[in-house]
């Protein structure tokens, strides 16, 4: 999987029929130290992620193993909102529990 930071959402009225009803979020890939890797993905949000969240994205055809994605034209599924990243003995990220 890839770690990514949600930076925005994509609104698209004209799109593949089978994408209808799904939230599409733009995530910038980050390193375990939360540095931007300079690449992004548009992923289908399956875990109610929000802008600013750190998430896990499954790429390629494995993305269609995510819940409900079997027959969808998707190669990037957001499958987890990250609470904590522990890397080389340090906590490099901890999600602040902002009440929604």
């Amino acid at each position, binding site marked *: 999987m890839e770690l990514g930071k949600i930076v925005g959402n994509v609104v698209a009225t004209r799109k593949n029929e089978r994408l209808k009803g799904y939230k599409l979020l733009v995530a910038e890939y980050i*390193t375990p130290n939360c540095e931007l890797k300079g690449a992004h993905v548009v992923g289908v949000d399956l875990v109610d992620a929000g802008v600013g969240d750190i998430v896990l994205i499954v790429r390629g055809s494995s993305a269609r193993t995510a819940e409900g994605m079997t027959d969808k034209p998707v190669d990037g*599924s957001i499958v987890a*909102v990250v609470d904590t*990243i522990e890397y080389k003995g340090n906590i490099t990220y901890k999600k602040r529990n902002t009440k929604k």
Partner: protein
Amino acid sequence: MKLGKVVGKIVSTMKDSQLKGAIIFIVQPLNENLEEVGEPIIAVDGVESHDGSLIFYIQGREGTLTLEGRTIPSDAGIVGIVDRIGK
């Protein structure tokens, strides 16, 4: 498969239900001389490895087969712990 070392962990409570109970590690890829090469990857643990374990991992579609008896939404998985590499 490729050699790697477990160097960290990702904790998530809000996740795809198929990932419930799955342990997600950060793996530093190694070359055949066990030197660190390339960027860390995120992989589901399939063999009860732990921080510092010398392992080997798979990537791509096969990542969905990392856990016994169920398919999971994953594109990388740890599938073995290395005891030693004989030269």
